[in-house]
């Protein structure tokens, strides 16, 4: 492959990761649950694209597998499940937030800066064309985490978690062209099961508490 291709490739990769980041901000800014789920699907899409890109550039084939899995699980299955849950519980929009949206955005900005600041000393380690996206990966993880903290509804917390997962995947791909295949598979499997279990719980909670507003789950305390 020519240098040109490499540079273009790495820029494309970076572009994808930036897009990922943007979708995160989108989720932060979004009140409507279904929209959040869609955004997550889109984000996963970008992720898959990036993975494929990396796979193409480095022709390491198992990354294709990863990309495919991403599409299957994170773009198709999980959003399905989530949407089902959302419909079934008909919680259209999230009105309750612990942190209002502008503040949230500001904080996320701060998190991104932090992420860059943290990864800055170790970025030079990687000699791969994707290394710059490590910072973005960390940023996405933090933001996902922040979503979980700042949102009240169970669903959004799940979405936050999945965003974290995306961040991780990005990290894995960025840092090392993905984990060894076996690990990769395992991780995907786990993510899938996690999603299922969360779905189960959401249903059961809905049955017993007749709401998935986790702010109701405060009976167990000191």
């Amino acid at each position, binding site marked *: 492959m020519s240098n040109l291709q490499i540079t273009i490739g790495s820029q494309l990769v970076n572009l994808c990761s930036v897009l990922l980041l943007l979708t995160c901000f989108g989720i932060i800014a979004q009140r409507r649950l279904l929209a959040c789920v869609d955004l997550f699907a889109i984000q996963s899409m970008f992720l898959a694209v990036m993975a494929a890109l990396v796979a193409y550039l480095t022709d*390491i084939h198992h990354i294709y597998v990863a990309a495919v899995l991403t599409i299957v699980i994170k773009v198709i299955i999980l959003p399905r499940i989530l949407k089902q849950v959302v419909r079934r519980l008909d919680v259209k929009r999230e009105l309750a937030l612990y942190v209002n949206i502008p503040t949230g955005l500001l904080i996320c900005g701060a998190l991104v800066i932090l992420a860059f600041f*943290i*990864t800055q*000393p*170790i970025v030079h*380690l*990687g*000699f*791969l064309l994707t290394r710059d996206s*490590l910072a973005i990966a*960390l940023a996405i*993880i933090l933001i996902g*985490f922040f979503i*979980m903290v700042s949102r009240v509804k*169970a669903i959004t*917390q799940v979405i936050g*978690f999945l965003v*974290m*997962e995306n*961040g*991780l995947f990005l*990290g*894995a791909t960025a*840092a*090392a*062209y993905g*984990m*060894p295949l*076996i*690990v990769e598979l*395992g*991780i995907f*499997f*786990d993510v899938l*099961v*996690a999603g299922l*279990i*969360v779905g189960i*719980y959401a249903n*059961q*909670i809905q049955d*017993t*508490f007749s709401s998935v507003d*986790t702010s109701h*789950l405060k*009976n*167990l305390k*000191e």
Partner: protein
Amino acid sequence: MEIHWPLLLLILTPFLIGLSGLLSRNRGTLDALQCGQAGILVVSVILVAEEVLTSGPLSGLFYLHTDALSVWFSLILGIVGATGTLYAVGYVGEQLDRGAISFKRFQRFFILFDSYLAMMLLAVNVDNLGIMWIAIEGSTLLAALLIGFERNKGALEAGWKFVILSSVGIALALFGTILVYYASENVMGVSEEALRWGVLHQVADQLNPEAMKLAFLFALLGYGTKAGIAPMHTWLPDAHGEAPTPVSAMLSANMLTMAIYAILRFKILTDQAIGPLYTGNLLVGFGLFSVAISAIFLLTQQDFKRLFAYSSIEHMGIALVGFGLGGVIGVFGGLWHLLNHALAKSAAFYGAGLVLLRHEHKIVDQVPGLLHGIPLAGVTFLIAGLALAGMPLFGLFISEVAIATDAFTRHPFIAYGFLLVLTLAFVTLLYQILRMVLGTPVEQKVLKLGQRCRSFATVAIAVNLGALTCIGLYVPPGLSDLLGTILALFGIPGK
């Protein structure tokens, strides 16, 4: 790559037995299978230990790898797992007899329970950080299902919190793993081997310090969440309180221990890369904080299962301090503490389970005079409680003294703080335990315990407490050799 049957047995048995549970239609065979599993676990774990002691680390097929450290934790998981299985047969069986649950769910419980054990055993016996992570995540998910098993409000809430919090934790841990992988790259390039702990251990001193620092930080937070280290401990009391008692016992005695194991693996690598000071300070800091927090919460605790949960937080903290100090006796203390804690704490939970079955509530001041009420549980509480409080004659005392000593030889002030919080915890825990054990029972309606339940529980408790007192009084040579090799693994000349 030759096959080590004991090792394979150790890990596969629970899986297979669990699955075969699906096929067996009648209860007798199910019980029999479980008892068999308990037996096999104990035997095979001891065989594995033998083998490792005689002929160094084993590597089976499929990343299976067992060195001294793994053996130590396999011992804990195996033995406590065995007694746990027995107890579960009694406990869940009792619920079945009372018609609290259907036979189907009875089956399902054991499928989950066994594969949960299997996952944990796998986690401590693989060489690959990635696989280890997967196993731990798997155990988390199964634990989530087990915690919510009883499907009442409390159980669901606890399960939900557990699932969310520990998934977050686990995610952070994964990032830590990725970072290690990342750091290993520019030492050995992109390779399948780069996640093998053994391999990493050889090249660890060349790994990039910054990356390792970051990696360890994430690993500590991530696995620390599962180990119930304050301030990531918040799920723990709920989960321990609401889960079916055998599960609580497994959570406390096995899962926390396993999480500590994972942290240790990372610590060893990081220490080689950047020296022990960094990890040491972090561990000691978190450890002390955990002990202090738990001590305070023990004081006002009204629910005896949560009580034991907080005491688990305390003991994990103590062990962390030991490992953090990292001197010979410190690490020894940590390991020794984990073993004894597992035995004592599971026994305590077994006792708690009996009380719960009998009284159907968990309020401390509603169950005084257990010595008269339920002698079995009373005695268990007394012995286990004293052991957990760190009374002399029990291993926990020895390990606490060891850790204190190590602390003292390094930074006396840590030692003073340590002893202070320890005394506080001691007082609060013992105060609560004795409130329950002594005195005269209050009149209230109680349910009778089934014979089979009682007998199973008796066996489980007897084994645990027996082992506890034995190693309290006399350390088998095998164990001490094992400790020696582990210390060597920590880069400390074994004594």
